[in-house]
């Protein structure tokens, strides 16, 4: 049984996806840039000192333009903008990745249960999703973020919960397409339990569309997360979250362009890299999805 499943395509399928992905120049560029950002984010947390280099107030050096000492200038408290952006990278990455992990986990689980069991369970789950999804996502996220209080975790939860319905729908659709396959019927015939069938057969076979959706959603989660921080509902100051830095820059549009320009640029480059990867993953998996 195990050998059979492997031959069916697990490794062959993923190998082919990887080959297709590597052929895509944009996707590879995106992947390299994203890896660099992750590396910088990790290094910054270890190499920069939070108390002296990130949040220490130094009024005499406030609002300086770009210089050798401060390549991106300084903010209204005299803090180095480049350091703050480097250190802030891990907030955006964490928000994007954790939020999507939350929504993928909850959404796919609900979708798989709904798709596999059908009937009343399906009706209850999918109707609940129908009720959550028409609420405009930014507004719902604001609502949830303020309900849990201003923190990184609550921001991740807010951004994550908002996209649960999207994952539930994708997962349900793909489970329904594999549910009628012969190998599921065969597994049932030899007496495999529902949990066993779901874990061993349904999840691996409905994974591709969920994965495509997840990659794409990391990008939008980062944007929604920084929007909430911009509105004052995210990571509290003085932590240098990019959206929060933009919110501070707003009061100094006249005097310091740097405070607005660079944090936004950082968000854009990160999101762009993830979008490139997302497009690559989708294109690499799409021909197989149509099978």
């Amino acid at each position: 049984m195990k050998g059979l499943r492997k031959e069916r395509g697990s490794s062959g399928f993923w190998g082919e996806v990887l080959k297709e992905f590597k052929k895509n120049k944009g996707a590879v560029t995106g992947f390299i840039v994203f890896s660099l950002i992750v590396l910088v984010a990790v290094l910054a947390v270890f190499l920069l000192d939070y108390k002296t280099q990130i949040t220490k107030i130094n009024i005499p050096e406030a609002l300086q333009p770009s210089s050798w000492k401060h390549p991106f200038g300084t903010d209204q408290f005299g803090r180095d903008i480049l350091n703050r952006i480097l250190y802030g990278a891990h907030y955006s990455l964490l928000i994007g990745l954790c939020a999507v992990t939350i929504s993928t986990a909850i959404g796919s689980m609900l979708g798989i249960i709904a798709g596999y069991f059908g009937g009343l369970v399906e009706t209850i789950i999918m109707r609940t999703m129908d009720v959550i999804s028409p609420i405009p996502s930014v507004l719902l996220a604001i609502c949830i973020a303020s309900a849990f209080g201003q923190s990184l975790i609550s921001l991740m939860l807010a951004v994550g919960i908002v996209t649960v319905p999207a994952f539930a729908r994708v997962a349900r659709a793909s489970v329904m397409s594999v549910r009628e396959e012969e190998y599921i019927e065969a597994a049932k015939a030899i007496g495999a339990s529902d949990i066993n069938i779901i874990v061993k057969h349904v999840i691996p076979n409905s994974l591709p569309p969920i994965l495509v959706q997840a990659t794409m959603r990391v990008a939008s989660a980062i944007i929604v997360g920084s929007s909430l921080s911009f509105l004052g509902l995210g990571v509290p100051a003085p932590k240098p979250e990019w959206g929060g830095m933009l919110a501070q820059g707003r009061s100094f549009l006249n005097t310091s362009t740097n405070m607005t320009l660079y944090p936004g640029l950082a968000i854009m480059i990160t999101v762009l890299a993830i979008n490139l990867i997302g497009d690559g993953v989708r294109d690499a998996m799409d021909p197989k999805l149509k099978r």
Partner: protein
Amino acid sequence: MYRYIIKRVLLLIPILIAVSFIVFFIVDLAPGDSIDAVFGNELSTEDKETMREEMGYNDSLLVRYARYIGNVFKGDMGMSVLFKKPALELYLNRVPATLKLAFWGIFIALIIAIPLGVISAIHQNTFIDTLSTILGLLGMSMPSFWFGLLMIILFSLKLGWLPSFGNEGRGSIIMPALTVGVGQAALLMRTTRSSMLEVIRQDYIRTARAKGVKEGVVIYKHALRNALIPIITAAGTQLGIALGGTVVVESVFAWPGVGKLTIDAFNARDTTLVVGCLILTTALSSVLMMFIDIIYAFVDPRIKARYSR
């Protein structure tokens, strides 16, 4: 056809009621209430407590929700503590500004997206195609509020051409609408490109070319016209999303729309107004999307046929 419309309208009511309960429940989770926010220091703790008792703040969630929804059916969505006015009236006063912003935003998005999408479809896999694909990706990856801030720096502060906030004076709509439009344009451009690519390969396009019709006429009269249906549908969906998504843009430009009202209500912990804003915005965008579906059904004979028995 009428059966379809009636069905859509009837389906909307239970969904909106359920939405109202979810919103009511989540807002209720948030710490602090409007009495604390408004009378924080003016009243003693006992006075505030009596006030809560009188206003029914201490009843259980279900009781308060039942009372609320009962009043909503009578057309009363409660009083805003922040503005001392009925929530419904406050909201309705702000709707035109948000509609104006969303419509202009989508209009700008279409003006950018259709030509770019058509050009990159005609020149598939050439330099022009790559360039516009990159432009689209940049547009999608850019946080819209950042783009808005950069425009304020350039056009209001450095050049002094446009007002940086509000909905008054000539040109005040330009920057907010561009901010909404550029992000949407990226998505619509992708739709235009793929829809055009599909249509260009159809037999009737080959026939038109074979007849000797000029290339420009083939593209704009035969191809684009047929490619337009998915584009318009996507634009409609985007419009619905834009209505709920202008919150951040409205906050950047101090645009007096419903998004700004919602954020102000949030910051003041004006729960009555927050709940009202969320329910009404959901209703507004759902109704809009329903209209688009219905129009679409009228345009597309296949959908029409299904319901015209």
